[in-house]
Every structure is written in C-alpha cells, then in structure tokens.
C-alpha cells in the first residue's frame, strides 16, 4: 500500500489541519462557535424549541388525520416567530452567516488556484428547514 505522503495526501491532511486551526482563530468562526455555545446552553431556548416541536407534531398529526385546525397553525407560527425574535437566535443566525461568508471566501481562494469549486462539488443546495 502506498504511503499517504507519497501521493501527496499526507501534505493535504497537514494543510487542512493548519487551515482549520487558522479558521478557528478568525473572528467570524470564533464568534459563531461562541454564539452556538450560548444557543445550546440556554435552557429557556431549549424549552422554546421543545414547545415548537410539540406544536409541530400536533399539527402534523392533525393533518394526517385530515383535521383542519387553524389554531394549531397559528400556534406553530407564533412559536416560530418567538424563537426567531429571541436575541440568542438572532445572534446565532448573524454569526452563522458571517462564518459561512468566510468559508465561501476560503473556497473562492482555493477555486482561483485549482480551477475547482471544492465546496460546490461536495455541497448540496442549502435548504433552510
């Protein structure tokens, strides 16, 4: 079996490790990771997410049983709106956007050299749900 360093994979792995280290030191990624941590650690937010899941499940059940209940729709929409307005969620979404922008910039730098869009070739169209 060929040595990984022989076919250049060893060097690639090492450069990836250095890139990850540098990315983690960049403000956009640092702020994203901090926002993600606050998001995950917040118990109130956890309860709001659980509440939204519960409302959503009730809505799905009602739809499966062909019951049309506008109050359930409204309940889900209200719970989503409350979550989207929560300051930690607002911070998280903004920080994630900035972090994704940096990853796209990184990808663009590499594409300029290689002529290959790495992220685009492995990625899928980013849905939101």
């Amino acid at each position: 079996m060929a040595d990984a360093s022989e076919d250049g994979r060893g060097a690639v792995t090492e450069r990836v490790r250095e890139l990850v280290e540098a990315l983690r030191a960049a403000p956009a990624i640092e702020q994203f990771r901090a926002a993600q941590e606050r998001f995950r650690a917040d118990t109130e937010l956890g309860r709001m997410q659980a509440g939204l899941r519960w409302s959503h499940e009730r809505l799905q059940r009602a739809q499966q049983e062909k019951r049309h209940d506008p109050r359930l729709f409204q309940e889900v929409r209200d719970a989503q709106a409350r979550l989207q307005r929560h300051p930690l969620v607002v911070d998280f979404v903004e920080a994630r956007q900035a972090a994704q922008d940096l990853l796209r910039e990184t990808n663009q730098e590499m594409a300029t050299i290689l002529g290959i869009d790495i992220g685009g070739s492995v990625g899928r169209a980013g849905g939101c749900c």
Partner: protein
Amino acid sequence: MTTMQATAADPTAAALERARALACAIGESAPFRAFEAAQEALQADADLGSRLSAFQVREQELRLSRSWGGADPEEVRALEREWEDLAKHPVLAAHLAAREGLASLLREVAGQISEGVGLDYGAACAPAGGCC
C-alpha cells in the same frame, strides 16, 4: 510590512493564506494530477468527445421528456445501455475513476473542515437553493 506580518496581525487574512497553501497541496497531490491527466486525455480524443456530446444531447432530451411525464421506458433502457458501453471506453473509464479519486479527496477535505469549524462546508459553499 511583510505578508507574514500582515497575516499574523489579521487572523482572517491568515486563514485565507492557509487556504491557498491547501489548494497548492491539493494541486500537487496524486489524485489531482491523475484527474488533470485524465481530463487532457479525454479532451484529446475527438471521437470519444463526439460520442459523449451526442449521448449528453439524448440524455438532456430524455430528461425533458421525463419531466413532462412522457419518457419512453425503452428509450431510457437504450440510453442506459449506451452509457454502459461508453463507460467501458478506456479513456472514459480512466477519467471516471480519476474523477472519483479526486472527489473522494475533496470530500475528505470538506469533511475535515466541517468537523473542525462546526459548520457544513459544502452547504455553506453550495449555491443558494433555500426553500423559504
């Protein structure tokens, strides 16, 4: 100020510098070089190129028919057989293998970056296709 000093003072510039170093390492790797060679061989084979173009035109036509619900199953099977035949061509087979080899390396790279930063690299860089 030297480039090194500039990137040391600016972590974002340092990350982009690392990205360029990674791109160079990928460019020197065996999977990338094999892909480039296979790509050149494919472009140099005019006969194979015209067979591939004709195949792609038929595939596109069939995809359109399928989207309208009018694809003839017999035609679909014929096209599949044609692809099996084409894929046996040594130049195309080598190209497909080289492409998969490079794709596998790039998936590994993207996976390691995703894991390291806690964000899906591919999803962040893919063209926007949001649902909302």
